[in-house]
């Protein structure tokens, strides 16, 4: 934040100085023009030779001084402004890192196929975020016509239509969709339909006493959810007491919050993606978020490693530091052997010893180097034969 503040300071200073400069220039020019006009007027009136010569000489010399000052001010002061402009540039360079801190090593996208893969991933992102026309344009420009066809786009078109309607607080398309996909939604234990009915119910209550009958009729929609959500239904029915006076000053005012509508959009997107067998969050989003999180630490390391000439971090097998991606972005188990401190792989799987402790297969082999066919667990006194260890799969 303070980096922005520093740059903004220089920008504001420059704006002020420019304003003052040009005001001054304007003033000087106006004065000079006025003076010259008055000289012209005076000289035009003069008929006598003598007066003319004197007048001309006097007034022109005065004017000359003034014009000289004007020119000097115009040129010199503008030159001075350059210092302020370069200060802005220096502030930017000081507070921001140029060239991504030399993070870029080789080109990530170096073949035509990789470019196509990336463009496909971008198209998926554009479809999910509702930019359908942009996706069409990209498909044309990047030559992806074969890969992204109408079938792939159709579910997104519908999804975006429903989302746009939800943004306008109209739940009916969403409800229709729920009813069509009723079975699948039940299979994933979704309570999306109930939440949509709840929002509509609250909308009707907000219409006041004249909607009383409609509200009661609508509450029949809750019957199917009686078993799962009975507590919430009780609350909703309780809020009817405030039909006359409005919900704003009631204990049920939380139902009026905008978060409910944002939550329903997210809930719908999650459910729709699950039904379409898509990942919950767009892969491009996940990568970019993680990347932005990882960049500061990695850029630091690159700067340090540059001094030691160890080669670039992206050319190695493993990153040199641990990046905490957060629990949400942990998609696979990673087992790190406590003895050899290496990640286990297919060829070096984790093995469970009889006592329950887990080490990697390589570590197991190393413990058995005396060839005795009897190994002792590194963590407890339990002994066993190497063959008794069982391969595990996380």
């Amino acid at each position, binding site marked *: 934040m303070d980096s922005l503040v520093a740059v*903004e300071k220089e920008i504001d200073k420059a*704006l002020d100085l*420019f*304003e003052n400069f*040009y005001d001054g220039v*304007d003033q000087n*020019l*106006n004065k*000079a*023009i006025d003076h010259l*006009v008055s000289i*012209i007027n005076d*000289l*035009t009136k003069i*008929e006598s030779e003598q007066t003319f010569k004197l007048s*001309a000489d006097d007034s022109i*010399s005065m004017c*000359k001084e003034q*014009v000289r000052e*004007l020119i000097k001010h*115009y*040129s010199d002061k503008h*030159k001075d402004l350059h210092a302020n*402009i370069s200060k802005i540039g220096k502030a930017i360079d000081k507070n*921001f*890192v*140029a060239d*991504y801190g030399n*993070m870029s090593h080789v080109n990530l*996208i170096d073949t035509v196929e*990789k470019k196509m*893969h990336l463009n496909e991933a971008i198209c998926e*992102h554009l479809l999910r975020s509702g*930019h359908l026309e942009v996706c069409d*344009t990209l498909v044309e420009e*990047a030559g992806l016509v074969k890969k992204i066809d109408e079938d792939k786009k159709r579910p997104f078109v519908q999804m975006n239509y429903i989302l746009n309607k939800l943004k306008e607080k109209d739940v009916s398309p969403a409800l229709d969709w729920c009813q069509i996909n009723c079975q699948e939604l039940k299979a994933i234990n979704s309570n999306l339909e109930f939440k949509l009915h709840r929002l509509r119910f609250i909308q009707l209550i907000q219409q006041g006493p004249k909607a009383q009958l409609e509200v009661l009729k609508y509450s029949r929609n809750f019957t199917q959810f009686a078993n799962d959500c009975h507590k919430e239904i009780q609350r909703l029915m309780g809020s009817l007491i405030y039909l006359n006076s409005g919900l704003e000053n009631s204990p049920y005012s939380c139902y009026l919050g905008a978060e409910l509508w944002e939550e329903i959009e997210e809930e719908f997107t999650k459910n729709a993606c699950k039904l379409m067998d898509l990942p919950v969050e767009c892969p491009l989003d*996940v*990568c*970019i978020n*993680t990347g932005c999180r990882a*960049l500061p630490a990695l850029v*630091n390391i690159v700067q340090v490693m540059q001094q030691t000439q160890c080669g670039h971090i992206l050319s190695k*097998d*493993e990153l040199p530091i641990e*990046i905490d991606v957060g629990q949400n*972005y*942990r998609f*696979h*188990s*990673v*087992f*790190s052997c406590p003895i050899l401190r290496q*990640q286990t*792989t297919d060829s070096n799987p984790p093995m469970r010893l009889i006592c*329950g402790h*887990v080490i990697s297969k390589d570590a197991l082999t190393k413990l058995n180097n005396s060839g005795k066919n009897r190994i002792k667990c590194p*963590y407890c006194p339990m002994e066993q034969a190497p063959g008794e260890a069982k391969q*595990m*799969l*996380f």
Partner: protein
Amino acid sequence: MDDMKIIEHSTLKVPYEHLNKLYRNVHKTIDRDCSSINQSMNQIDKLAKSADLGQKSELLASLSSLVEKLHQVKKRSIEMRNQEKDLIEILKKRVNNLKDHSSSDLTTRKLFFKNRLDRILIDYFLRNSYYLSAESLAEKAHLKQMTNIDVFLIEKEICESLESRETQRCLNWCIENKSKLKKINSNLEFTLRQQEFIELVREQKCLEAVHHARKYFVNLNPDQLVDVQKSMVLLAYVKCSDSLCNQELLSDSRWTYLIGLFKQENYKINQIPEQSALETILQSGLSALKTPTCYQKVTAVFNHNCPVCNPNFNQIAKPLPFAYCSNSKLIDAYTGEAINEHNQPMMLPNGHVYGYNSLVKLMSENDGKIRCPRSKETFEYGEVQKVFIL
């Protein structure tokens, strides 16, 4: 250091360079105007010194023309004032926009990140010549002011002219940016002149080619001299045939090289980084998410949500390093929950491991028996063995 400092340098530097360029042009105009006013004033002064009534009308005429000149200077200065002010305002707007990165309001922050991704995509589109997509996205997301589309549109024009084998536009651009190109020791202008020479020889206009060489191949450094010598060899051939040593000089790839060189110099001059932000961020992100499991065919646990398992990113991330993990971090393959001291790992007889919570869930779904979600075998609870992860 936070990610904004690393990613947004060019967002601010590019309009700054525009401002610098404008400033220089404005100053040139000011100098011109000042010297012209000075000239007029001196003329009037001379007239006034030797004036008599007969030259009155001449003097008055010169005075009027000076007044006219000052009016024009005033008009120009108002124009330049607005131009300079506009560019500074653009800088200010961008700084304000970037402030949302650290906003205390979650919605504002979310919107900022969404816009940032859109900006990164627009930059990627522009670099790869998907101009229509870039403009479309910039419009839909209301981001036109935050992107550097104008720089790329100029680039587009020149690239198109180079593609149609025309060098004039690019040469004009070189002349316009002469001082900056000199600062970075650019070879672009020389390479363009060399290509013109080759084209003249190709059309068998050898005399013209020699004139061209005399005019432009001056003040060469040693490397350029070698290049010129190689090109001169072409003159020795009566007709440019497919003989081996001519191939390289006559091939179309030289034009592709020229386009690439131009783009490179254009980025340097405008303070635009050479690699796109998208690739840089993706490199870091994919690497931080990449685990050996994503690439194993045998025991692959294909997690739907993992971007690296996504077929597109799987290919892209192949050459990248794996994420480094000092301590084991386990997640349950059935529910995705974390496996830790609150959700202890349990191993089934077939070697598959699940968290205790998953086993409870599996038992409730299958009459007290555990059905392994991956191998479909059924086990009793008594067969499960505890596992200790340190």
